[in-house]
């Protein structure tokens, strides 16, 4: 009977054969999630783009791949009358709606995935059912980082 070769590596101090498989860092008998496309983008939300921006990653894989995205976000300023950029990363999707006075739009990050594209969307939502009108706000040099895997989730 033919032997099937395998590739195992383990964490430092662990034995690939005698320790539990979770300590293997690479194991060719299992699929390892691999990044098909990745990138970092800088964008702004302002009146010039109707407070909306998106990044489309075309993959044409024929199935919906796993995708991850982290991005800057916004929070109320000290006077609680507007929203300002926070240069920290949080996982998307997110929807941030704060009780500023006057009321500001919600900042939304969401995703659309299909068999051809992954679209990462960032926009301000000002048609909020509960409010007659809300104010948009400008965010400049927002940063987002994304991974699109070749693997399905």
């Amino acid at each position: 009977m033919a032997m099937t070769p395998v590739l195992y590596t383990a964490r430092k101090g662990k034995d690939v054969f005698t320790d539990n498989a979770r300590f293997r860092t690479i194991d060719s008998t299992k699929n390892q999630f691999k990044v098909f496309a990745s990138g970092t983008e800088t964008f702004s939300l302002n009146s010039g783009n109707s407070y909306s921006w998106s990044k489309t990653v075309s993959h044409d894989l024929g199935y919906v791949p796993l995708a991850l995205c982290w991005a800057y976000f916004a929070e109320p300023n000290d006077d609680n009358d507007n929203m300002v950029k926070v240069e920290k990363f949080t996982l998307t999707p997110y929807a941030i709606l704060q009780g500023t006075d006057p009321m500001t739009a919600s900042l939304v990050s969401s995703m659309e995935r299909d068999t051809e594209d992954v679209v990462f969307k960032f926009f301000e939502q000002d048609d909020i059912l509960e409010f007659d009108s809300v104010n948009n706000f400008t965010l400049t040099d927002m940063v987002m980082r994304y991974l699109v895997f070749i693997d399905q989730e």
Partner: protein
Amino acid sequence: MAKKFILEIAKAGKDLTTAVNKDKALYSPMFLPKIYAVKKMTPDIPEGWVSGDYEYEHGLSYPPMYLYYEQQNYFQNNPASVEFDPERYVYGSQARFANMDGTRFANKSGSLDAYLVCFLDPLKSPATAPESTTHGSPRLKIGEDLVDSPDYLADTDSKYQTLKVHMQGQLSCSVPEWESTGYIGGDAIKFNWFTVTHNLGYPPVHTPFVNTVGLSLDMAYEDSIPTTFTANDVNDSWAERWAYDFGWAGVYIEGLWIYVDTTKYYVGYKRQNLTASTAHTFPARTVKVNYTIFNLPINEEFNLLA
């Protein structure tokens, strides 16, 4: 210029000579995210408060990619709801309260023990790249520059943990029709649980990334929930509905949560009639969940840079 080698190994049952990239277990031109640490965090809750802050100083010179999960002993951390024995784990809350910068991960509203899965891969490259590290153990490393470049630039580096798949599939959940009363009638809330047995002996990192709030399906579909739907699709776009429907006042609630424990992966489906005395028949549904369970514990700390 040095020649760059490629490592490619086909998945079980596939022939490497004919396999396309998705059929490969390893394919070094597509980099493997490198997990260097899992860190437990316990919130510092002031007396009389229900939540507090927690943070983890990662010691890197840049903000790293991360995932995080919370431990729950009760459904939605509510002792009046379903008790979990053993405890279960759920993907952590999204939004601004949990965030990462070049110094630390912080959560400003935590009430539960949580576990941060920290990648070496940067969210934003540092002004000065760190030096590559030594390992002191056999090491497989593939990349452009294996000597001078920081470890995070390697396509493959066996010093670090990878996202190895333990099992993957689609769980089809048949939620039966249910005739509810209003809350006065005493039959106003119902849970249906659907499971996949993984038998790993530890709660594993998993997908999809449905957070602690769960998927509010009545809100996402504006009370027109399809008879059959895929939860992964709703999870991608639900954020768009949350703010739009701020103040949403549905009375027939349907929601979905995902948990894991040491032996199983759970999809929980909750229905609730919020009226006082109006009977309501919740229709049967088929809910599909595409899932992946990784060979990596949520709740076992390590640090491969220590």
